[in-house]
Every structure is written in C-alpha cells, then in structure tokens.
C-alpha cells in the first residue's frame, strides 16, 4: 500500500530468486566502483537490495550545490517491475511528494527489465534538470514551475540550501568533489529525440542554453518520458 510510509518500509525481498539477486549484486558492485557522474552508491551489506545513493544537484539547476540522499526499493517483482525511488532529503520539486516518493514515468509505465538501476538513477537525475509539472506530486511546485519559473527556482534553491547542504542532508560519507561536468549536455543528448520528420538536430556539447523555448522543453519532456 504505497505511498504512505513508503520510504521507511523494509524492503523484504527474501524471495528474490538467486539469479535475480546475482544480477543485483553485479549491478550494485558495478555502480559502486564506476558510478555515474554526480551519483554515489552506498551498498548495504546486510541487504544488498537496499540501495542508498546520493545525487549531486546538477549545475544550472536550483538544486546545484546540494547533495540529495535517496534510496531505491527493489520490490519482489524486480526487475519485471521497476524499483521505487524515494528522496530521503527534503526537496522542492514538482515530481517529489511529501514522503519523498517520486513520480516519473520511466519508473512506471515505460519500464523494461533490461533498463537496470543505472538507468533509473540517471533518469532521476534528469528529473532534477527537467521537472515535469504535468504529473505533479507537489502541486505547489508544479504550479510555480508553470507560472513563475524564477519563483520556483528561488524556493527550490532555498530548500536545497536548508536541507541538502551541511549535516541535514549529509550522506554516510562525503562523496569526493566532482568536476562540474555539464549535466545538461548528457540530458540534452538524451533529449535529442528525432522530431517526427527532418534530420536530427545537432547538439553541441556544452550547449547550456537555460532559457529553452517552451517547445524545446516539451520535446525534452517527451523524450524523457520515452526513456
């Protein structure tokens, strides 16, 4: 019965079949030793399916400078059913509910077993860059994002400052400082889904045009949904 109390439910997965567990072990170890940019994994020895991570707030977003703790809960049906993501650090974001629950389509509708944990983490990171007010869990954030971006950004920044810096959002151990790789570039590349007809628009690495037109934003959103 999600979502109430979701984030602190135990992930009782003693029933994951061995071959699935092996898959999880492999992926967790791979993610631990070779994490995606700005993401760090903290494997839990006692229960490897309890996946705790930190995500750095991407540059160029109101979350920049923040460090967000979150966890993935792999249900009994993983990987046929997607893991559930929860933010443990408070965040002001249209798609994150009051209990930290995350609403993103790639974790629901478009899930395929092959996608794996890395993809989930990247998707959630992408969501920090491109929030989707249309599936709002935090209605206030959704409304502000639609009506007044500056306002939204200011509040998101404020909450980032309060919760995602310093001891409040401190992860089990501090991740090493990261080169400010432009996270926009990765997202932009992912977003460059071919339009219905016509050639693929060329994206320059480092194209960090924050004031995307509404249409482009929409394209990205759609692309994100397709991920």
């Amino acid at each position, binding site marked *: *019965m*999600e*979502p*109430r*109390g979701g*984030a*602190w439910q135990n992930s009782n997965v*003693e*029933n*994951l*079949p*061995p*071959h699935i*567990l*092996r898959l999880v*072990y*492999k992926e967790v*170890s791979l993610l*631990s030793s070779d994490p995606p940019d700005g993401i760090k994994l903290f*494997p839990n*020895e*006692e229960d*490897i*399916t309890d996946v705790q991570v930190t995500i750095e707030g991407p540059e160029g977003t109101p979350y920049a400078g923040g460090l967000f*703790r979150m966890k993935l809960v792999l249900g*009994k*049906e993983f990987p*046929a*059913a997607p893991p559930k993501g929860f*933010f*443990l650090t*408070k965040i002001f974001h249209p*798609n994150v*509910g*009051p*209990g*930290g*629950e*995350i*609403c993103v389509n790639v974790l*629901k*509708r478009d899930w395929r077993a092959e996608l794996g944990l890395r993809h989930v983490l990247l998707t959630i990171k992408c969501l920090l860059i491109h929030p989707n*007010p*249309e*599936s*709002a*869990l935090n*209605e206030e954030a*959704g*409304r502000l994002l*639609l009506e007044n971006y500056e*306002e939204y950004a200011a*509040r998101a920044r404020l*909450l980032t400052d*309060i*919760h995602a810096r310093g001891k*409040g959002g401190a992860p089990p151990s501090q991740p090493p400082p990261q080169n400010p790789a432009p996270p926009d570039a990765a997202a932009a590349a992912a977003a460059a889904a071919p339009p219905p007809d016509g050639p693929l628009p060329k994206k320059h690495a480092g194209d960090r045009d924050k004031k995307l037109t*509404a249409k482009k*934003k*929409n394209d990205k959103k759609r692309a994100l949904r397709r991920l």
Partner: protein
Amino acid sequence: MSSSPLSKKRRVSGSEPPTGSSRAPAPAVSPSITPANGMAKNGGEAEIDEGLYSRQLYVLGHEAMKRMQTSNVLVSGLRGLGVEVAKNLVLGGVKSVTLHDPQPAAWPDLSSQFYLREEDVGQNRAEATLPRLAELNAYVAVTSTRQPLSQDLLAPFQVVVLTNSSLEEQLWVGDFCHSHGIKLVVADTRGLFGQLFCDFGDDMVVTDTNGEQPLSAMVSMVTKGCPGEVTCLDEARHGFETGDFVTFTEVEGMEELNTCGPVEIRVLGPYTFSIGDTSGFGDYVRGGIVTQVKMPKHIRFKRLREALAEPELMVTDFGKAERPPIMHWGWQALHRFIRQHGHPPRPRHQGDAAEVVALTREVAPGAELDEDLLRELAFQATGDLAPVNAFIGGLAAQEVMKAVSGKFTPITQWLYFDALECLPEENKEMVLTEEQCRPRNSRYDGQIAVFGAELQAKLGAQKYFVVGAGAIGCELLKNFAMVGLGCGPDGCVTVTDMDTIEKSNLNRQFLFRPWDVTKLKSERAAAAVREMNPALRVSSRPDRVGPDTERVYDDDFFEALDGVANALDNVDARLYMDRRCVYYRKPLLESGTLGTKGNVQVVIPFLSESYSSSQDPPEKAIPICTLKNFPNAIEHTLQWARDEFEGLFKQPAENVNQYLTDPRFVERTLRLAGTQPVEVLEAVQRSLVGERPRGWPDCVAWACRHWHRQYSNNIRQLLHNFPPGQKTNSGTLFWSGPKRCPHPLVFDPDNPLHLDYVMAAANLFAQSYGIGGSRDRGAVAELLRHVRVPPFAPKAGVRIHVSDQELQSAATALDDGRLEELKASLPSPEELPGFRMFPIDFEKDDDTNFHMDFIVAASNLRAENYDIPPADRHKSKLIAGKIIPAIATTTGAVVGLACLELYKLVQGHARLASYKNAFLNLALPFVGFSEPLACPRNKYYEVEWTLWDRFEVQGLQPDGQEMTLRQFLAYFKKEHRLEITMLSQGVSMLYSFFMPAAKLRERHDQPMTEIVARVSKKKVGRHVKALVFELCCNDDTDADIEVPYVRYTIR
C-alpha cells in the same frame, strides 16, 4: 487504463437478448420475475447468494448466474466422468441436477468415482452418489432416477449431458433434444482419451464471447473524413481488434459520436483505429472515452447425426493436430465393437484391438489411419482415469453453463483429447501386457487397465507434499486419492495450509461443507479424502511455508519426498517453494487459475527450467501522482480509498500502540530518514491528543470533518494551484488528456452516499479507539447537524509569505528543538495506563464490518470529484479486494492436467518432450500444450552447468574447525581456478572486492557461519545443515563468469 465504467457495462448487459431456448414446459421457470422468498432451493427467483457465489460471480456475472439458477440439467451416467460434471454443476448453482443411471456400482468405477465407496459396490450408482452430491450446495435440488431414458424423461430439461452412453442412445437423444430446443452435451473418456460434443441448437446466442472486461481508452484526436480516424492518448494501447464495436462518451466538439450507437472499427495501429463516415460531424475539440461494446453472436449447431458425418473438430494440441479425425472415427468403431460383443475391447488385447482397427476402416473407408493410435484407444477402452475425467468433466460442465447462460463461446462442436505421453517412454509392449493390465477387482482397475499393476505399486509408495488446501489443493487431493498416490505402506501425502474455511470457499473447494466453516482447511480436506479412499496416508499441517517453518519442513522432510504439488494463490509462496524444490532437486507440479484461465507447469529436476526461470509480467502499478491528484478511472479511486483505509484505521493505531508499549519507539523513529520522524510523531500526537475522540459523537464529528478535508478542501486547494483554465508551457490545457479536472463536493447529510461515508468512517474510527459505534442512520444524521466544520481558507495568492512560513516550519522540522517540542507534547505512556488502540485489518468478505462500506463510499465520492462513473459494491470489492475470480470448472480441468504430469514423474519419464505444460481458457474456448523449456545450459572453462547444479563444499574440516573466509576463497582458487569477487548469502553481502580493507582484514579469519550471522544479524539455526552461497567469479583471464551456487555443509 482499461477502466470499464459500470454504467456502460449495465447498458451492454441490458441489451442482451434472451438465450436460445425459449420453450418453457415445467419445471422451467422464466427468470427475473418474482423476488426471492427465502426458499432453500433455487426456486427460479433472481436472488443470488453473493457470499457463497462471490468468486464465481466475478467469472460469470449476475446475468449468467441468474440464468443458471433457472436451469434444470440431466446428467446421465454416474461413473467418474458423470460425477465430475455433476459436482461442477451443483457447485456452480444450477436450479436442479437430475442424476440418471440404471446401473449398479462396480469395482472399476472406484478408480475415479470419488463419491462411490467400496461398500457401495452393487448399489445403484446414481442413488449412492446422490446424498454426497446434494451436500455440496443447498441451493441445488439434486434428484436421481434409474428409469431408462425416454422422451418424457428428457422433455423437462434445458440441458442433457450424456456420459457412458451408447452411440444409438446418443443419436436418438440428439435428434430429440435438437428438435425440442434442449441443449445437449455428450462426454466420454477412455483411459487417456477424451471426447466432448456440444449441440446448442439452430440459433445459439452468445452474449459475451470471451468474458473479458470491455476495453476502453482515452481519445486524443478524431479526424473528419470517410472513414474518420481516431487517435488515442499514448498512455496505453487501445487493445481493440478490427471488427470490434465501440461507443463514445465525453467527446467535445464532435458530439455526434456521443449519441450514435455502437460503431464497428478497423484497427490501424496500437493507438489508432478508423470508424465510419465522420465528414458531416462537428470539429473535434478535445476529450472523449471510447469503450468496447460486446455484440451478441449467433451460432448454428448441427445435430449429432449430422455432426457425426461432417465433424467440426476443435484442436487442443497443435503438436497432434492429425489425431482428432482419427479419434472421431475410432470412437465410432469402439461403439460398434461394444454393440457387437456386448463389452468393450479388453485391456491390451491384441485381437480386440485389431478388430477395432478393422471397424474403423469400415467407418472411414479409404482414410489414412494411425493404427497405433487406434490400437491404444482399443487397449484403453475400459480405462478410467480420474485426471482425464477431471479435465473432460471440467470442460463439459463449463459447456453446460455456456448453454444455459449464453456466456462465453461454446465448443463447436467436437473436442478430442489424448494424453498418450503418460504411457511408458520405453518398452511399452513389455511393460504393458495383457496380464499386467487385466482387471483384478481392485478399486484401481480402471487405472491398471491403462498403466498396469506395477505402476499402481509405485504410485502407492510415493511421498508427496501438497502446499495449500484451497481450490487446487482440494482437487489435487481428490485425484491423489483416486489414483492411489501415497496409498501404499511406504507412501504418504502431507498437506499444509494455514487458512481456515470461509463461506466463499464452499463454492469450489468442494471438500468442505457449511459446517466446516472456521475449521482448518488442511485438516478438513485430509478428512474428506480419507473417506474417498481410506488407504490414502494423508497427514495435515497448519503451516505457511516459508523461512519461518524450515524447522518443520527441514532437510529430512524434503529429502524423503518424491515430489511437491503447489496449490498456492500467490507468487511469493510459489517462488519460495520453487527455490526449495530446486535446492532439494524435487519435481514440482505447479498450477494456477484466474477465472476461466488456467495453466500447468511441470518442473523436472535436471531437465526443465524452474518456475522462477520465467516471470510473468507484473501488474502495472498506478503512478503515485495519478493516485494523489489525477485519477481517471475507478481503479485509481479504489486504490486511493484502500490507502485511506490503511492510513486512517490501521497505521495510526499501530504507531500509537508501539509508542505506548515499546520504550525505544521514539528513539527508533528519530533515526528514520528525512521528514519521517516529524511525520510519525505528529501522527502519534494527533491520534493521542488532537483527534482523540471521547465518545461516539466525536467520531461522527471527525468523520464529517474528514469528509470535508478530502472531498471539498483538498480539491479546492488543488484547483487553487491548478485552476480549470490553467495552461501548460506548451499552451495546452493543464486539465486535459488523462488529467480530469475535479470539482469539490458540498456535504449534504440527506445524500445517502455522504451519510454512507460518515456511517462507515465514524464506526471504523470509533472501533480503532475501542469506542462503541452505531448503525442508527437517523441518529447520526441528527448528530451531523451539530458538527462544526472549520471554513476552508485556500493558501491563496500569498506565495512568498506562505512559502517563507513553510520554509521556516520545514527548516525547524529537522531541528532537534521541534522534535523535542513534539516529544514533550506527547502524553507519556504512564499517563495512559491500559490505553491501547485497535488497528483494523482490512477484511473484504464481511459485509457487516463497514470495511467495504468505507471503501465504496470513499472511492465513489472521489470518483464524483473527478466525474468518473462510480462502481457498485460488487465491482469495488473485486478491484479493491484484489479478488481472483474463480470457478470450479477451471480448477477441476487444470488439476486434471497437472495430475497427468504426475503419472510421468512417477514413472520417471526422462524426455522433456513427454511432458506438457498447459494453458487453457474455457471461455474462448482454448486449450494449448507446450513442451517445458529445457533448463538453460551455462559453461565456465569446460564445465557445463544448469540451475540444478552446484558446488558442494564441506565447511566442517577434518579437524572439526570450520572454514574461514580466507580458506573458502583459497579453496575456490585452488580447486576450481575461480577468483571470487563477491560472495553472498540471501540478500547479505559477505565479501566483495570493493570492501574496505579494514573490514576485510577482520573478516578474513572468521568462520563462514559467523560472518553470515554477523552480516545478516540472524543466528544460523540448529536445523540448518547447509548454507547456500552465491558467487560472482573471475576466471584465469580476469573475465567475469557465471558459476553455480554453493552448498556449504556445516553439519
């Protein structure tokens, strides 16, 4: 997304024309006239006992059920097949079943006639069976007759089922029934062969061809043109097929679509289809829901005499598609043989078999005949197997239900079946001799005729474990008792189930009677099958299988078993049993049903894959944002209502009790992540202080205020954030597509739904505090007039201010100060001596406990907020209770097929091709078989391995010391040239290459069991003889390779 608003379903079923037979001589009573009058037997009235028929109603629906309750059925022939058909029909709830059989019971009948006992031999079969069948369902009048069949005898029935009947009889009965509008089913089994025939008249009307919920989809575009093209939202595929009929609602712009009748469609793609000419219609603007409409289908049946000459044959196994025509002729030859000799061909009698082959040539001159097949049919003509009867009997009873209800597509018209793979794989002629298969006046003669006496001894010596005593469990046990599994001196059958019997079980768990309700299923089931075959050595257990009961079901238990038969209703337990069977290398019979659908999977050690090798796609979860803000289907509001139930009546009470009893509760709560500590403590405080009721009036007031919060205030706040005219960045309306714009409700104590909600919520709330409630609606309405509801003040327009405030509260929320404040404001447990709350566990099947009342009211109120068509209690219960529709026919048929696999396992069939996994859907009807998939073969170095293989490691060394981690790693390096990179037990990681060096140093010299205990924080129990480790390994070249698991023996 496939919601099917009930109002529409009603309209569809309302348009159903009456089914075929319209003649009405006594005792037929025309349906739906008078209300129920409390008669015990079905009197033709429309009243349906929903408590009893609950799960079956979800398969058949009320309309079909009502038609069944007015139908009188004759079942002729009360051997194993006849009793199976009759059992299913009595359970199903037809008006009456008349048992016809002029013959006395004989020894061979006992092979499968589970309601005949040894002392009944010599008694009339129908009369001996009658009392036991009648016990199954008090609503069904069961009578018997030993009169010869005559036109007068047949005339009053709506359906006649012939079993164990001569062809001459079948022909005249077929002529009579066809010309008098009586529906006819002919069923017969001969050993591993089965035959089924249906004649439902010249114009049978099928109102629902497949039993599926009508699909629906949301429209995003309709073009003007000829044909017009409809595009659906890319939320979900529409799932329609060309030729389907659909209707539209809520279309804006092209409103003509909403009023035109059902239109036929042509599918263009997964999200698009075309309809008729729309060029004259208005311009499509937005919105619209398109819903499938079930159109009646007419089928013309040939009478038996014609169908015999020009057979239409349904194929059940495409691997043997050439067999049905040959069996069709062979069966006629059998009839000729019996007519000429006065007895059927004798078991394994070469001369008789040769004659049957010759007779078949007469029946089908010039046809190409499979003589081996025909000889087998002759050899097995006296064979009588419970599993085959269960399968054919399940199908036949479902056909009777189709005949009377017009629900689901009937078999047109012949079905033949064989399970010859059950016979010995090798040396058949030497194993199955005339001597081996001759009758010996034993209750197993019908089975010995097919398999010989030697297999009978083997069956008796088997030790089997039946996991679950529900519908499948009951059927398994019946079959086991009949085939004699575990009936010998060395055999046994253990059945376990932790559940007790409920009323809704009685409709298909046919070993239970009304007086068994509340007793343990496993116990009652064992007692019932002991009566069927006193030799059955069955013992019952009340355990749930799982890690907690591994002390009971330990190594000794499993190692002694020959096999396991699952009769489970959930995937978790199935996965668990699968893992245990793989570990102990035991065969597993796995079966399941869902309404008219069923499947059988057989798992054979070292041969096939296991149950968990292939996973069913999981049910799509509803996204949280859809539940919280954007519901568009009744499924969403029902799930929301279930969450409300947990969050209002269960979790708060549990938290409070923990707070009061567990001194470390606060401490544990404070360790929770994020905002959880504040939320949990605030909830406890609310329950103990802020909202704690002092009496019944407080509970009513709370319910009223909560009503306002959920159906008025929260909706108004949402509309404040996203007003109806809100545009998205791309300029479209925010409230469009799958997002339905809500509206707040106004509380009205005179509105029955509103009062329903308050009644249920107030009573449940009171119950959670141990306060007495009330069912007096008038009094509650009066109390409501005095409830003061605080006015709603939207958090309007003052963003910055509000946000600052919010920020501050959010910021301080994490502050120790805020938590201290909360802790201080909580009354200490000492201040509340003896006070406890009462968490409420949701129970869907009790209609007096207010649970479903709350769910239905809460869901329908929210549905009204969003203009979603409401659902009645029946449908709400199905969805919110996650009820699995079930019917006895499917279960009987599926378990019959599972038990055919049992014959193969017991004989030790070694070829994968001899085994059959099965899928069936009686509604379509469809039966399909497939060879189990081989276990996948892996390889490291030159070692081939499958999921059935493992490394055996002796953890206890000769010196009595246990292996340390260092030694374990070295062992694999040395013995197997494998570099372990990760080592785990269950979900615990014991070792990994990226482990901190200090930790590794510490662990290196610890014994393995100690590491397991430390990491998992669980002691290794004394009953554990061995541990299972999983490995990730590198080979010589540092490449990552897959290897088997490790069985690490410690005792």
